[in-house]
């Protein structure tokens, strides 16, 4: 009888230990995956910082249907949010809503009909342009990102905000 009790206790203990260790390894793994995303993002960001984009033949269209070159617009020190109309909507909302001063914010949308731009402007309360393709896009522009342009027309402060980590985005802003 004693033996059975001991066996039963041993089984109980081992099951409990297994459960705890599994939970720990799971949380460790999820922490790791987020960390690896951040690492990949950092590498992606480094690739684009310093890229000259004003010299490029990129044409951007404003809500009145007029075409412009990036270099012709006063975009220095503006926070430019870049996304595609096919990007994840909650991710875009998270990034756009993070910028409290709307005068600082400019949005570059890919694949948007020009007729929609003024509606975006009204809803986001900022200036919106359509830019179908940029040389600093990655994942064909489906992953939203933010950047600034310096006085020489080069990309600076390129950053990929993740909804899962709002603190980092706040630090960036």
């Amino acid at each position: 009888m004693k033996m059975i009790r001991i066996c039963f206790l041993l089984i109980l203990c081992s099951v409990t230990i297994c459960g705890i260790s599994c939970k720990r390894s799971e949380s460790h793994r999820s922490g790791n995956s987020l960390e690896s995303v951040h690492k990949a993002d950092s590498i992606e960001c480094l690739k684009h910082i310093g890229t000259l984009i004003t010299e490029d033949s990129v044409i951007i269209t404003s809500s009145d249907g007029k075409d412009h070159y990036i270099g012709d617009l006063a975009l220095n020190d503006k926070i430019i949010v870049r996304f595609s109309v096919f990007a994840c909507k909650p991710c875009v909302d998270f990034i756009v809503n993070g910028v409290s001063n709307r005068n600082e914010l400019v949005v570059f949308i890919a694949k948007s009909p020009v007729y929609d731009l003024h509606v975006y402007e009204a809803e986001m309360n900022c200036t919106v342009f359509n830019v179908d393709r940029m040389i600093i896009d990655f994942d064909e522009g489906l992953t939203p990102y933010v950047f600034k342009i310096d006085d020489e027309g080069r990309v600076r402060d390129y950053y990929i905000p993740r909804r899962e980590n709002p603190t980092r985005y706040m630090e960036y802003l």
Partner: protein
Amino acid sequence: MRIKRTIIALWLVSIIFCFSSCRSKTLEIRAIALDFNNVLTINVNEEDIINLETTTKSLLYDICGLSVEKGSIYIQSRNHLRVFDLQGKYIQDISSRGHGEGEYRRISNFFIKEGNIFIYDFDSQSLFKYGLDGLFISRTRIDNIDANKMTPPSALFPCGKDWISVNCYGGDRNIPTLSIWDETLHTSKAVKGRFLNSGTSFYDKLFVSEDRSVLYWEPLCDTIFEIKDYSLTPTYKIDFGEKSLQNNIAVKPIDERLSYLASHPEISFYGMARWFQRCNGNLYFSFVGPGKRVFLCRYNEATGNTLVFSITTPLGNYSVQPFFYIDNDRLLMEAHNENDMTVNPSLLIIQLKDLDHEND
């Protein structure tokens, strides 16, 4: 011995019958051949244009859905459901996005049934019901879905007393494209014949006629499907001739079709747009060609007579869009003002009888 022979003979007859019925099903696909050498022109006059009022409260993206009821035009534009009068003056919105009572998270689709407005919200898996004045009446949550077999509807439409859903992709599970739900939205039955085998979210479209016949379309295959005996069957194949998308692309799975075109922007072809409607024995659909030029087609389902129309506006000030809606004896077609891109879309009014006259 005789009994054995009889059984074998019966078995053979039943097999032959099965095969013949299968063959007759495949033979039912009808080609709608478009004649580009005989495109008729519809001229829309200034007085037949409804300019939807532009205010800070009434701004519209493209039109995703429209219904006309008791002197008001209800227009869905993404997550807004806005009401205008027949002259285009903005009246009000029907509810809004939010988490309060009667507020939706996202409009998947809307419709008007028995004098009430319904909004289906995929995010909250709920069907919201409002009066025509916008007052919230009730909310039905679809929460009894067996997650192992089904996904929540991505859009929901009335079909007589029952409901029909367009379903969303569910991973490895073999999810049917459409399901039919009972009146209480508690149980559903799969519509066989077409399943969601890819993870792409695409803009498919469903139309339910008053006689409960259901037409279904998905992008880039120029085919209209119909539900027959709980099975989604291809009924019409639109034939653009030399201008069609290559057949070897059109038969690929939907996600492959979309990604192929995204990576080959130089490809020029004619393709059926998302909008079609069955009315008085005719099938109407719009299609788009190179340069985003939009055409309207009317196909007589009894005679097979097919007419292609090009629509023009005064001084060419409007660009015609693929969206249209048939309201009794007239067709309302979306158009954008080319001179001012910051105003709301307009609706071109085309009398259906004028399409007959063009034919004379």
